[in-house]
């Protein structure tokens, strides 16, 4: 789980961000994506705690105590930002008005279903906004390290509790880009220097392999 792996994932995900879209980035790895969004693609970032138009972290000494992101860190707001209460924020999320959410993952199964909010008996943080986001956002991208200490996280059936029964749109790891489809998981791309066999070996679900599997294009 080197810094390079996370950066690779963030840069590949950044290519999926469309201009003029409303984007939600989960805490942790997904947050890195913001650094790689192409300059020519102005996007609006929305945070679950009620701001559209999230800006960068403020310089030290310029924090606004009433302005944080969903991880509790201080943020700034861009010109044109808008405040929302929780019902309106989740109305946007659940009503399909958020174009893209990027979330971390614990497991994704052969049907493209994500588990990312609890490990029974060990980690029960609560789902926060994750279930709403995966169920309601127009596109859902899972950004995660391909395996957990060598154990595949892409599996036939999630052993962990599902976040939603709705399949995600895309899974991006440091090894591959995988697209859940009605036929199954399709291996769309592989990371630079990674072979199809490498990906298959690190994956515990059946992968559909198209005739050509190109390497990532990175932003």
């Amino acid at each position, binding site marked *: 789980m080197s810094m390079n792996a996370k950066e690779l994932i963030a840069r590949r995900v950044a290519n999926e961000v469309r201009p003029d879209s409303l984007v939600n980035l989960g805490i942790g790895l997904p947050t890195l994506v913001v650094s790689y969004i192409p300059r020519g693609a102005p996007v609006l970032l929305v945070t679950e*705690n*009620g701001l559209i138009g999230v800006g960068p972290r403020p310089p030290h000494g310029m924090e606004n105590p*009433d302005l944080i992101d969903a991880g509790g860190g201080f943020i700034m707001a861009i010109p044109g930002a808008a405040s929302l209460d929780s019902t309106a*924020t*989740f109305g946007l999320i659940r009503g399909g008005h958020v174009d893209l959410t990027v979330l971390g993952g614990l497991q994704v199964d052969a049907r493209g279903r994500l588990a990312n909010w609890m490990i029974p008996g060990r980690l029960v943080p*609560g789902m926060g906004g994750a279930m*709403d986001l995966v169920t*309601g956002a127009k596109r859902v991208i899972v950004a995660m390290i391909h395996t957990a200490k060598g154990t595949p996280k892409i599996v036939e059936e999630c052993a962990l509790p599902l976040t939603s029964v709705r399949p995600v749109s895309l899974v991006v790891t440091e090894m591959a880009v995988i697209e859940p489809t009605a036929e199954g998981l399709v291996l769309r791309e592989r990371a630079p220097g990674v072979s199809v066999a490498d990906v298959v070996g690190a994956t515990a679900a059946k992968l559909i392999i198209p005739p050509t599997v190109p390497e990532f294009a990175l932003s």
Partner: protein
Amino acid sequence: MKTARHPDDLVAMIPDGAVLMIGGFLGVGSPHRLIQGLVSAGRKGLTLIANDTHHPGLGIGKLIDAGVVKRLIASHIGTNPETQRQMTAGELEIELVPQGTLAERIRAGGYGLGGVLTKTGVGTIVEKGKPTIEIDGETWLVEKPLRADFALISARQADYFGNLTYELTAQNFNPVMAMAAATVIVEADEIVAVGMIPPDSVRTPGILVDYLLEHPA
């Protein structure tokens, strides 16, 4: 018209075992002086409805530390290991609710609706024990309304009618909770004369508010 009250007087109204909604998201937009008052008064057996329990020693986390909460309905407790410890030890009963569903359930309680029909949670463990309804071939989860005896609200400004404004991400659950409790107590950064908040700036109409917390002497 409401007069601003001393925190002790306000906290005295809240009995042991009461059902409370408290606004805030990781402490931003939480009524910190009222929370401190509850801890100092040694309440017990409270049911708490809130987005999260912040961190130990901070905001709503103080209520968890003090062991005054018996039952918690929240969307996220990952920032507070003490909440998780009490849950695991069986000292604290917790219902985890998706954040959007939590907001809508509170709204339903305040708006006189019978429940919320949502896709969030369908087919997951959140669905367990709850009715579903099929409408035009699609399955929806029926989530019940939430109401409270008291809502403790944090606001940017209040006037003496109780009209409220909020600031940025300190808004979060406050406006919707102000609709859904029998008694609404407000801790505002500032209390202004009636007429100083333009009608279009009011986010919670004063008719919903019962008491204002006075400013520190």
